[in-house]
């Protein structure tokens, strides 16, 4: 992994073109509901030196993949290009890009000096003939080239949509192989797009449901290492783990960090009954949050840390409830048909994503925090376990196929319900947890 990625704002001197700080007319309003993706062109970035040639191609390819992967942008193939970009500083021939209907244009250059790689880029609004934002430069090590590509994509996405981005982020998940009755599970971490998979545990013990810490440097997960499900915390950088000592009980599972990272909320089973508890990480002290004969699990904090949404079958079937973060009276928010589980509060705070089971089908859905405006985004034999992208625009989840040859795959879908697509992983995948944008 790349140690330090310095991101410098470089006022690239380009005397003939004024630098507009404000965003120009090129703007994609995502909330309007995009039907027609915006056409864009990324001519292969210009290598400053021969060592940079392959990186320049690869970085351009990843940027295109990031942008088209959102479903909001459509790549114009280089076959259609009229202009060639052979120098980063040469004036852009806007007429040539207008002619092929490219609305956005990303130009860039790559320099490699030893192990150091530098990427410079500009985003252009083709129809107004103006630069969108300032030219920017990212520098790091050559083995971090993908991250630099993602950082460029993040800038392009943010400048055009006006929203936060999510490409330079990682996903923790459970890598799965083998048939359903002998499934081998390993904890793994990868880039959001499935690249750079790194395994964090072997398959000796069943591992379940990792969750990132708010800063992304730790993971909580559940493992059968001792024979019983227990909660572990793992330092991602050092791949070093330790068991979190909870209250006495037959099992502890379903752990999630609070937004300030200082405590966790989890499920503890005692005498067959499962309740929610909260542990202060500094002192190791746990307090009980729920006390009912029902199953209470799958907690998730609101982004401000004041409330917890969770799953309980106290009404007879699993439904979603919200309670104060220190426990107390819970309010049921799910009232549609079927069973609701695995609620996850969006990073923006306005929506809750969940798994819904109804009439033999599974769905990933979203609703407002008062339970209104329920929308189902997916439907299949078995979809479960949503996790939010850092900007709250995309949801990743597990889809398991039916029958003896059934297999788990990670999928992502836009919160509009469009752009459903598998996330490529070397083996099967389940239980994704989408981490924060990296620094």
């Amino acid at each position, binding site marked *: 992994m790349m140690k330090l990625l310095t991101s410098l704002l470089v006022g690239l001197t380009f005397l003939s073109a004024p630098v507009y700080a404000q965003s120009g007319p090129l703007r994609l309003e995502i909330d309007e509901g995009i039907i027609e993706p915006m056409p864009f062109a990324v001519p292969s970035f210009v290598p400053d030196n021969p060592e940079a040639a392959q990186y320049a191609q690869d970085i351009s390819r990843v940027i295109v993949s990031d942008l088209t992967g959102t479903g909001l942008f459509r790549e114009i193939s280089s076959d259609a290009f009229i202009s060639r970009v052979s120098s980063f500083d040469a004036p852009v021939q806007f007429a040539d890009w207008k002619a092929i209907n490219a609305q956005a244009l990303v130009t860039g250059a790559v320099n490699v000096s030893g192990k150091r790689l530098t990427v410079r880029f500009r985003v252009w609004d083709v129809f107004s003939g103006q630069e969108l934002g300032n030219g920017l430069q990212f520098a790091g090590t050559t083995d971090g080239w993908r991250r630099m590509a993602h950082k460029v994509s993040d800038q392009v996405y943010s400048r055009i949509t006006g929203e936060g981005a999510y490409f330079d982020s990682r996903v923790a998940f459970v890598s799965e192989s083998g048939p*359903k009755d002998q499934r081998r599970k390993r904890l793994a971490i990868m880039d959001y797009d499935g690249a750079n998979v790194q395994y964090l545990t072997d398959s000796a013990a069943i591992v379940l449901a990792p969750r990132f810490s708010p800063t992304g440097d730790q993971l909580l997960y559940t493992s059968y290492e001792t024979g019983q*499900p227990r909660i572990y915390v793992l330092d991602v950088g050092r791949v070093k783990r330790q068991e979190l000592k909870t209250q006495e009980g037959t*099992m502890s*599972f*379903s752990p999630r960090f609070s937004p300030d990272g200082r405590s966790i909320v989890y499920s503890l089973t005692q005498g*067959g009954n*499962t309740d929610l508890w909260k542990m202060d990480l500094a002192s190791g002290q746990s307090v009980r949050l729920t006390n009912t004969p029902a199953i209470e699990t*799958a907690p998730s904090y609101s982004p401000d840390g004041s409330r917890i949404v969770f799953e309980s079958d106290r009404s007879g079937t699993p439904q979603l409830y919200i309670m104060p973060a220190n426990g107390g009276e819970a309010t049921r928010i799910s009232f549609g048909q079927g069973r609701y589980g695995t609620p996850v509060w969006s990073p923006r705070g306005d929506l809750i994503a969940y798994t819904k089971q109804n009439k033999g089908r599974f769905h990933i859905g979203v609703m407002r925090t008062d339970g209104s405006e329920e929308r189902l985004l997916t439907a299949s034999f078995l979809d479960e376990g949503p996790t939010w992208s850092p900007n709250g625009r995309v949801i990743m989840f597990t889809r398991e196929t039916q029958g003896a040859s059934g297999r788990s795959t990670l999928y992502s879908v836009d919160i509009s319900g469009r752009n459903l697509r598998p996330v490529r992983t070397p083996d099967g995948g389940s*239980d994704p947890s989408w981490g924060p944008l990296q620094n």
Partner: protein
Amino acid sequence: MNLLSKVAAIGALTLIAACSNNDPSALGGGAGGSGTLVPGSPSDPRSPAYFQQTVGDRVLFLVDQSTLSPQAQTILQGQADWLLANPDFVAKIEGHADEQGTREYNLALGARRANAAREYLISRGVAGNRLTTVSYGKERPIEICSTEECYSKNRRAVTVLTGSTLG
């Protein structure tokens, strides 16, 4: 692993003894010997293999339920009788769920089922300190089709004999 191969221990003793060795969870399954009652074989009423195959090591549940059916209670009564007659054994009760349900909910549901079986055995006189539980949720199905026929066998609590001072 097959579910409850209901082989009555009549006649073909050597054949049955050979079969029982395929089961990894059976303790002390003796090989060898012939003609007479083989210690540790399913014909030996004190053997884990007998417990598993003749008494019945598992009870099944309805969808999203942990209530013990009359049939399940009969099997558990047999388990309790066996455990009382064989005080050197301890048991771990594994609770399981079918794949219809979310992962963490099913873990909790498996725990409910294992606990229901444990409580029943205790109510029939088995000491609580001989009985532990573990839930596998939907992580360890024994049948892998996605129909009710398989699901009904996966919604189970299995009493696994985990230790004995006997060989």
